[in-house]
């Protein structure tokens, strides 16, 4: 049923929806990494000995800096290689462009501005 519906759907919409699910999953994973690690390692007794990594407290390195680098690499991969090169221009019967003046020219042909 769902695949039948999808056949009638705009491929740009389907691509965008698929990309959105990937984004939400990625956000969830980084959320789990950062809050999970920092929840354990950063909220400690201040008197515990300080461990450094690259000059910063080790919890910052493992719980913020490293996920930051990973998230950046992921975003670059996602944007350059995963996001589909969809055409965004309106080319069919619904061609509307930017309204020069008034609602009549804003909506698609044969429709009113309501």
């Amino acid at each position: 049923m769902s695949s039948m519906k999808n056949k009638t759907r705009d491929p740009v919409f389907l691509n965008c929806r698929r990309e959105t699910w990937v984004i939400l999953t990625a956000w969830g994973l980084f959320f789990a990494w950062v809050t999970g690690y920092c929840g354990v390692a950063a909220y400690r007794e201040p008197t515990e000995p300080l461990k450094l990594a690259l000059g910063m407290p080790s919890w910052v390195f493992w719980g913020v800096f490293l996920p930051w680098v990973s998230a950046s690499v992921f975003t670059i991969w996602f944007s350059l290689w995963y996001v589909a090169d969809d055409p965004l221009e309106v080319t069919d019967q619904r061609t509307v462009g930017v309204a020069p003046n008034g609602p009549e020219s804003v909506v698609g042909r044969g429709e009113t501005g309501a």
Partner: protein
Amino acid sequence: MPDPLSPLLLGAGESGATNSALISFGIYLLGVFFIAWLSARVLKGKEFLSEYFLGSRNLGMWAFALTFAATNASGGSFMGFPSLIYTHGWVLALWIGSYMIVPLVTMGLLAKRLNQVARTAGAITVPEVLRERFDSKRLGMLATLLLTFFMFFYLLAQFKAGSHILSTLLANVPLYQSAVAWVAGITTDLPWIGNSEPDYLLSLMVFAVTVILYTAYGGFRAVVWTDVMQGLVMVVGVIVMLFLVLSQVGGLGNATRQLARMTPPEHGQAILRLAKAQDRDVVVRKGTWLRTQTSDGTGIVRTASVAVIPAKSTVSESVAILKITTPEEIEKIQPDVLELEVAVEITELTPYRRGAGQRGVYVSAPGPDPKNETGFLSFGMAMSFFVFWAFGGAGQPSNMVRQMAFNNTATFKRSMVMVVFYYSLIYFPLVLIFCCARVLLPGMEADADRIMPEMATALTAAAGYPWLAGFLIAAPFAAVMSSVDSFLLMVSSGLVRDIYQRNINPNSSEKTLSRLSYAVTALAGIGAVLAVLNPPEYLQNLIVFATGGLAGGFLVPMALALYWPRFNAAGAVAGMLSGCGTHLLLYIAGYMMEGRFTVYQFLGVQPFIWDLLGSALMSVAFTLAGPPSPDRLVEKFFGKRS
């Protein structure tokens, strides 16, 4: 020869800023006006509203990426954020950590689909997208009203922030001080305005005239192009500061080890005493370092307000002070050399509610806090902020309108990469810079909002390039300007396009629309200036109120409008009203519980989370309870194209 009746000034002198900082800053402003002039030339010969409010949907990679990034980086990024890092330490890395995923979420979640739907709808404003998607005038009007309501609060806060930043940045510039004295002379006796500080009034006028002129004159393209320049100023400023600070502090590891040994200072009150009364007032400047002798031994304090010892008297009234508690710092900090001997009698000391006397609090969570015994960042708030920065940004209509303006998918993809680098080069380095600032400039808790200009001045002076300070301090000003111009244009586009053209006079001529757009943009700015001539309190609360309300009201309805074919107008109205309603309710609860303008953090969680949940719940419930979107609308926005 000094005037015998003028007060004798003692203590912290000028911090080294000269007119050269003002000259660098003036060059920056000239650049902004030049860009507005260029934009106005481009505007000629194009369809007015589309160009004025959306840049003809033709933004390339640099323009789209930098206007997006710069609009998001408001004054808070360069004034409030550094002040928080300085005050609470490394825990701010966790507080801002969500920015690692902000480019992906704020741009990726809606941008491509919103751009496509806006093109299909022929929409040039955010309310227009919703109106066309549901073919509902009422929804469009509701969106415009909510947007204008929250935007105006945001504008008020940013105008105040802009003038506050300018007066802070230029406080020690001689020419600026002369101008402030002149303004004081002409405004003191004026009703209402006379209650405001003259430096605030002068800065407000400079800031407002600059922003209103270039925004009203050049429209969206001027805003975008100035954002590009402002974005570059910000990122270059941060990188230069990072190199200077790491070299001057002896490496990041050295700074972090010193931070680990620090204990939070104590705020308090003291009376300053002279050995002998003078014939004229003696003024001890704010920020003056003074030695104290107590039963515990030698200490050091910094004045946190101006102290006046009247003529013929030996004691001052009570003055705010900051007492340093870290032994290494007490030894290292040298008191200011004064013309007269001033003794300090401490009358009151308030230790931090969290972290007092404890080493290691600046390098661990939740971080020290002077007022909150659970510390600066509880674990619940850390999780909340990871949601808020990413999704709160995605829900800002100012971001949405930019996402409607890029020219094609390739631009969008490359821009996202650029914003990744941009945010990574700004936000994480700011944490490093201002953690190091605790080591280089101790005692700034007395006036933490000044840490950015103070660091810029100190770093460039130590490096032998004092002229560079003017460029570095332009960064926060650029940040607030790039936010204000965008919001100003959104208010005027809402009024001109969504209310006047779409509802009052659909057949208005191009000439009428252009005149109206210039006038409304200017009037919206002037209205905001008049409202903040006597500055409102609770600046940060106003900003959080406005941004939270906008994101809470717009994110879920817009996302569902783009991705859920069944989503109907009733669901969208319910989602917007419940998102904004939850937000207002939490503020009303906060006001009733604390008697001031603040928000109630139910279960210790960021209120935005509740706004989102309320909005999502009502959107889905009302949609499922009613008929789905009409087939013609589903076909138009979701159907396969021929």
